[in-house]
C-alpha cells in the first residue's frame, strides 16, 4: 500500500459512505489518512462539507477503489499468494 501514497483513491466504508481523496498515509492497521477529500456519491452525506483531511479507521473500510493502472496487478497477486502461503504455515 505504501507505493500508493499520493494517489487518488475512493474509500468505501462499511456505513455506505464513499470518500474520494488523495492517499496521505497508511499504517499497519490499514488506517488511512487522506487529504483533500470529497464525498463521491450523491452527496446525501453533507456532514463532511467542511472537512478537507480525514483519518479513517482500518476496521471501517469495506473497499479501497484504485485506478487499474496504478497497480501492477500481477505483482500484487503474486505477493498476496505468497503471504497467504506464509500464513498457512
Amino acid at each position: 500500500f505504501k507505493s500508493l501514497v499520493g494517489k487518488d483513491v475512493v474509500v468505501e466504508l462499511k456505513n455506505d459512505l464513499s470518500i474520494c481523496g488523495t492517499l496521505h498515509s497508511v499504517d499497519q492497521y490499514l488506517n488511512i489518512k487522506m487529504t483533500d477529500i470529497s464525498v463521491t456519491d450523491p452527496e446525501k452525506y453533507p456532514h463532511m462539507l467542511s472537512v478537507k483531511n480525514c483519518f479513517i479507521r482500518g476496521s471501517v473500510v469495506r473497499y479501497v477503489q484504485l485506478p487499474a493502472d496504478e497497480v501492477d496487478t500481477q505483482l500484487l497477486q503474486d505477493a498476496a499468494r505468497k503471504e497467504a502461503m506464509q500464513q498457512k504455515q
Partner: protein
Amino acid sequence: MIVYVSLHEPDISLTSVIQGTVAIVTSDGRMIVGTLKGFDQTINLILDESHERVFSSSQGVEQVVLGLYIVRGDNVAVIGEIDEETDSALDLGNIRAEPLNSVVH
C-alpha cells in the same frame, strides 16, 4: 509488497490534528464535533467541547453533549479535520439530509 508488522513502526500521526476541531463519525452513525485533546494506539480519543450534529428534515446542532469526552477507539469510524473557515461558512440551519448509516460488519 509484503507488510512487515512491527510494533516499532509509527502509526499514522494524529499529532497534526491534535488541538484542532474535528468531526468524529462513530460506528453507530453519529457525528460529533469537538476539539481533539488526545489519542492513543487504539484510537481512543479525548474530545473537548463536544456537540452532536443530528441531521434530519429540520437540522440544527443538537446540544453540548458533554464538555469533555473519552471515546473508545472501537467506536470511532472517521476522524475529519474541520477547516474553520469552511465550517463557519456552512449554514447549519439550511442543511437537510438523511442521517448517516451505522457501520455494519
